[in-house]
């Protein structure tokens, strides 16, 4: 019996895994992704520190996973048969923390402590401090190999729990990513789904300029993964892709989610400067207005 339908402490509605992807559900989740962006903006602006661009690009992906797809229990974050999510692109953790808080893992009121002294919400994820965080991240490239270890453990246990990992495209530069790819393929880990938040921009420029990774789908396919490509800000496509990935047998699955770094704020989109840039007060107000408008467009 999956406890994923447990009402979260803060009351953010969860659509249990298996719920039909109605237009209302899809729109509600899409709206929340914009609200969570606004929350991240407040956290980074408040602390004058953090990473907005990569947090905004994975807003819909994290929202879909935590409010629908994952089998997890905020009341019992260490429940051994939970689904696992490895958040490999650790610098974008302001979005992870926001989603975890709204899912009920810890109080939403704690979010403004992000990156402050004595906070449970560290600059990069620290599993021993933050309920719901599975592994440390920040140094890039760990996600696939760690998730493969989790998937192997699930298989050894005869468990149906599933393993997910969210990667940035920049961290595909790292060699250990490809070691992990080979390991997952060798063991035919079909209980593993990796989602690449392919926003095309890393710290100092476009991925095309810094270290070309295309044709990325061909590369994963050549490593014997099943590849699904989607528009990574289209909630319906995300929800469907996650379901399809669960049905693939004999191979691990990668969802290449084509996204936009800084998504939702016009002057931040696709700008490497907003990888770690901090808005001034005028930019903050302007960005907040755009995000509120983004949320409003999804409000029925």
């Amino acid at each position, binding site marked *: 019996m999956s406890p994923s339908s447990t009402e979260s402490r803060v009351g953010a509605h969860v659509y249990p895994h298996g719920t039909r992807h109605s237009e209302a559900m899809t729109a509600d989740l899409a709206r929340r992704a914009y609200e969570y962006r606004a929350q991240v903006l407040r956290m980074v602006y408040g602390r004058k520190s953090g990473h907005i661009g990569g947090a905004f690009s994975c807003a819909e992906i994290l929202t879909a996973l935590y409010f629908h797809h994952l089998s997890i229990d905020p009341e019992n974050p260490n429940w*051994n048969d939970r689904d*696992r999510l490895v958040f490999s692109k650790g610098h974008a953790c302001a979005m992870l923390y926001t989603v975890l808080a709204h899912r009920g893992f810890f109080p939403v009121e704690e979010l403004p402590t992000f990156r402050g002294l004595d906070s449970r919400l560290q600059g990069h994820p*620290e599993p021993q401090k933050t309920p719901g965080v599975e592994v440390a991240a920040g140094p890039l490239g760990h996600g696939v*190999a*760690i998730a493969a270890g989790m998937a192997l*453990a699930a298989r050894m246990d005869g468990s149906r729990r599933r*393993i997910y990992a969210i990667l940035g495209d920049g961290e595909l530069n790292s*060699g250990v990513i490809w070691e992990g790819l*080979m390991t997952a393929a060798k*063991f035919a880990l079909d209980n593993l789904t990796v989602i690449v938040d392919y926003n095309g921009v890393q710290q100092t420029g476009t991925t095309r300029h810094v270290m070309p990774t295309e044709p990325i789908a061909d590369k994963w396919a050549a490593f014997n993964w099943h590849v699904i490509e989607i528009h990574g800000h289209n909630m319906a496509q995300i929800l469907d892709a996650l379901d399809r990935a669960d049905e693939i047998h004999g191979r691990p699955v990668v969802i290449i989610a084509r996204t936009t770094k800084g998504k939702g704020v016009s002057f931040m989109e696709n700008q490497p400067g907003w990888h770690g840039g901090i808005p001034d007060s005028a930019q903050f107000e302007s960005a907040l207005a755009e995000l509120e408008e983004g949320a409003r467009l999804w409000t029925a």
Partner: protein
Amino acid sequence: MDGLIRNPLGSPSPMRKAYGEALVELGHTRKDIVVLSADVQSSDFSYMFEAAFPDRFINVGIAEPALVDVAVGLANSGKVPIANTFAFLFATRALEMVRTHLAFAGANVKLAGAYGGLSDSFDGPTHQTISDFAIFRSLPNMTVVVPADPLAVRKLLPQVAAWKGPVYFRLCRNEVPEVFTDRYEPKIGEGVTLVDGDDVTVIACGVMVARAIEAAKTLAKQDIRLRVVEMHTIKPLDTELIVRCAEETGVIVTAEEHSIIGGLGGAVAECLAERFPVPLERIGVKDTYAESGPYSELLEKYGLGVDAILAAVQRALARKQVNSSHATSEVFK
């Protein structure tokens, strides 16, 4: 301490075979043990576990960062993974994985560092490991354990598996003399006094323990009473025992199959400097890389033989006398 060591020391016995057998024994008693290798299981003898428990053995190929990261994923899911590759690869190539996920984030992964020290003697300096104690000791939350003979491998491995948190277990490739009797009951974090003596203390680990015992026998004929302490745990260090030895013998020699920088000698020096300063002589590889060659001859050439211990004890005794005459002149000033 009586009866902990064989007299004479036993005939040489292969450390890695003892390790393979100990792994299999552990696999029978603990179903949560998973063994991983970066394709060196035929070298470190973890192939014995693979043969006994194929469903709990994972070969990730020649990919040491993935070796550690896959183990991290297993540990997150309640397994107790024991990852195997050459010691230098854990300490260098996979170090960031170890630092981030084991030391920092506390993943309960055990690292079995094969071919430690100069024990991969013929393969040469690229394969030898003389900086691993220094590297792992500097990481908060890491535990560093070094067995001294095959029996110690068998007695310590279950403790390594049961220890809460990450452990680096440093192994030797080769045949080494059997040092201990069945009465030897090591506990992680506690040094063991093997030979009593009040003139000089030698604190040794790994293959240097047998050499220190040989040195004590030679010195006994010259009426020099060498205390031999085995420090199988480099971290957490048994500082109380070290201070007691400093108080009681007034001078310390350390002996390790490691660089003289940052390992057992470095750890003892830190302890003595803060707690009870006495003269210290460190035996180890003298801040250089070694070369290819037969193991015991290599240890001799790079200053890790019994003769090196004897010479260090003589230097220590001389410094002890200078120290005590200083103390005397202070008193009569």
